[in-house]
């Protein structure tokens, strides 16, 4: 699934475009930055409530496919400037982290009830 498709399916608001053709490989949900540095993997979509500029550095270093800011949280203008420079997509939603992660999980995993 591409970044563009996820924007469509989750009805995300695009704050910084980046590359909509980029393939998303899984997802990581965390508000602790060192946790993301330690445990996210290349291509992950990152769901978080953090909005300050350090999130762009984290996403760029780990090669994440995009950042989803949840709960309609206002995003620091400096974050958007840095994200545009690094071509990291920044997307926003009114949904909570739990809700957006749950919907995305169902989209990519198609889990079966045991």
């Amino acid at each position, binding site marked *: 699934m591409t970044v563009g498709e996820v924007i469509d399916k989750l009805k995300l608001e695009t704050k910084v475009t980046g590359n909509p053709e980029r393939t998303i490989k899984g997802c990581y949900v965390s*508000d*602790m*930055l*060192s*946790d993301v*540095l*330690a445990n996210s993997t*290349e291509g992950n979509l990152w769901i*978080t409530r*953090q909005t*300050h*500029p*350090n999130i*762009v*550095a*984290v996403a*760029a*270093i*780990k*090669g994440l496919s995009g950042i989803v800011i949840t709960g309609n949280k206002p995003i620091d203008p*400096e974050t958007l400037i840095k994200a545009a420079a690094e071509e990291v997509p920044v997307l926003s939603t009114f949904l909570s982290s739990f809700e957006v992660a749950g919907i995305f999980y169902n989209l990519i995993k198609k889990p079966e009830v045991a």
Partner: protein
Amino acid sequence: MEESETMEALEGSFQLKGGDFMDAGAASKEMRTVLANLGVPPETIRRAAVSAFEAEMNVIIHAIAGTLHYAVEGDALKITIIDMGPGIKDIQLAMKEGYSTAPDWAREMGWGSGMGLPNIKNNSDGLKLDSVPGEGTTLEITINLKGK
């Protein structure tokens, strides 16, 4: 002439200021470009960048000021971070995952999970930490550019 220019591009120095989180990541960003140009594998570049970024953040969160210097020496990348800061009283404790002395402002930003030094250790091939409480800390990180 050309050779000295090449050599110049294989190292860099950065000033770090306590509390100045806005520009955090500048050193690791430049390093990533330098390593990519050398043909270093992406996974190795990520290990180097995570180590450098965590080290930068440690200075920004804990110290008054510091410097980060990186240099490619043969098949290894050496990153040296020297700060004027509170120093670390108990290095063994500081290396323990989950232990943090980060101030509230850093925790509110999602730092201070006590994973910084463990992350550096896990992502590097060598780590040397020297600290004098009340004076500062020197951290030397080695990354093997030909893989772990």
